[in-house]
């Protein structure tokens, strides 16, 4: 069974008389433990697709089956539960709570998972340490650099130990060294059996993935398995 299966998905925005096809007609099947990079020019519909996969957005037409169940038939609470427990989402624009510090931002999904304050704090601190931000946990987003904010967003996505990670340009604001470190994290998760889908513009980031899907004008341009499996990075993560 595919954990993700979309068939003839379209997302059309009606702006006045103009019709914008963010996604024209996309069909995809993803299995458990896949490692996929989605590439394509700006405006090709990558973020739209990711939002769809992350159960945040609904398609104009087409069918989305998540672990065999039709998403359009799920209740709000079912979707909230999937977003909370099965999917870790890294937004292109981070989407952090502006008035809360890094720790509280990372704790947020755990609050809605009903985890105790003590355990929440420990797990959030661990997740922040994993992305090299152990000394920035009390900083608010406006007291962090763009790259640091991105890493808070990544920590928040990983803190619930989700089986599927959807990351929209997770290294977009990072220098290549930090970017590689983050990719090392993803690689590790992939090795543990998690499913990883990431959007990137960088070929060297995409090279970590096993499968590369290229979008153009809301359509799948190519979908290739580029190698049998990823090559593990040997060096340990340097901590900031």
């Amino acid at each position, binding site marked *: 069974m595919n954990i993700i299966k979309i068939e003839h998905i379209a997302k059309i925005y009606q702006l006045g008389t103009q019709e914008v096809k963010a996604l024209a007609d996309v069909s995809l099947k993803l299995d458990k433990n896949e490692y996929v990079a989605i590439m394509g020019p700006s405006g090709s519909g990558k973020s739209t697709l990711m939002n769809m996969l992350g159960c*945040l957005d609904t398609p104009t037409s087409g069918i989305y089956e998540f672990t065999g169940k039709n998403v359009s038939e799920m209740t709000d609470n079912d979707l909230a539960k999937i977003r909370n427990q099965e999917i870790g989402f890294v937004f292109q624009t981070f989407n952090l709570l502006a008035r809360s510090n890094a720790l509280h931002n990372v704790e947020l999904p755990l609050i809605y998972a009903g985890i105790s304050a003590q355990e929440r704090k420990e797990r959030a601190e661990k997740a922040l340490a994993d992305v090299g931000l152990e000394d920035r946990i009390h900083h608010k987003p406006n007291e962090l650099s763009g790259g640091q904010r991105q890493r808070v967003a990544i920590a*928040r996505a990983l803190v619930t130990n989700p089986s599927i990670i959807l990351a929209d340009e997770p290294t977009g604001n990072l220098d290549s060294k930090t970017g590689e470190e983050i990719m090392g994290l993803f690689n590790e998760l992939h090795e543990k059996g998690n499913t990883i889908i990431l959007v990137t513009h960088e070929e060297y980031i995409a090279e970590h993935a096993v499968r590369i899907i290229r979008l153009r004008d809301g359509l799948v341009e190519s979908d290739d398995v580029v190698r049998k499996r990823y090559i593990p990075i040997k060096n340990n993560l340097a901590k900031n």
Partner: protein
Amino acid sequence: MDFSQIFSVSLNSLNNNKLRASLTILGVVVGIFSIIVIMTIITMLQNSIENGVSQLSKNTFQIQKFPAMMGGGPGSRAKFRNRKDITMEDFYKLEETLKGVKYIGAEQWQFGKVIKYKNLSTNPNIQIIGETTGGIQTNDWHVEFGRSINEQDVQYSANVCLIGNDVIEKLFPGIDPIGQTIKVDNYPLMVIGILEQQAQMFGSSRDSRVVLPISTFQNIYGRRSRSVNIMVMSESKENYDDVIESATGHMRTIRKVKPGEENDFDIFSNESMISQINVMTGGIKIGALVVSIIALLAAGVGIMNIMLVSVTERTKEIGIRKAVGAKRSNILTQFLIEAIVLCLIGGFVGILLGVGIGNLAGSFLNAQSAIPYDWVAIGLSLCVLVGIIFGTYPAYKASNLDPIEALRYE
């Protein structure tokens, strides 16, 4: 997600909007204050009466021509005036026939008199009270120095009197008053005893008085000038109600009230005074409740407005919360609790102000300080109710936002 978590999320966001929050709760403060301040004063007055600072001592009731408190609008006084006076003869007949009595006495009062001693005189605020010996006992008055009035004094209309402390202060600075002669309306009376000091009631001293035998009183002010008040102390708490009942019966016989006719006298006790106060204050209470409910409704509309603004402003926050797994119900409770907490903070401030200012005002009436706990509880419940009523719609709106739309909101 447990309650304390939602609660701290709510508190946090209120903390980020302090000024706006405090302006919003002003209406709630006014609403709660208005009811609590009035209830505080009423409770203080009631307590003062209930705690025995009242006119009547324990197990005592009073029979008089006029009711203790007159309501009933114009004309009602005339109706009572037409009643026959209660005479000393009535009293003696009742004294003879009434059973189960510990003490029974009669008294008459004159107010605002000037007392003279040599060239000194008091302010015109002295009460002149004629008593039988039983009357001094039903009033629970005690003589501290000298002797009290006895049966012979009453029988022979002795020109003697007992005086209170205020009279001594005015007329006998540094002199022993016992044995001296004072003048009450030019009538000479010898001081034979000094009354024990009594606590003030409602700001007026109860020591500016002169007590004399009721027969002497009637010599000064005329036998038929006024109706006498009869006071009865029952033997015990248990037979109190029975004694009231049989006293009513005896008085009807003595005064020849025909069966089926209304009593031509009034009986009142502490209990009846309290219930009359309750009747009188009932209207004030309802008025205060109406005012405060109107203020709370107005405040509620303000709270709804501010919550709607807040939901719009925090659309992105709501989107983020939903994106990481908040359910509708999580968002709904968060905003609902914010509204309730806002109202409760206003309620607490209103209660503090109301109890504080109420006690201050009540203390000018010399009433015992009090907190109207039942109304504090009612007030806080009203706050919660207002929070729920006016917070539900904004909270519902927040919970219904589409996650991706909310996330895109700038």
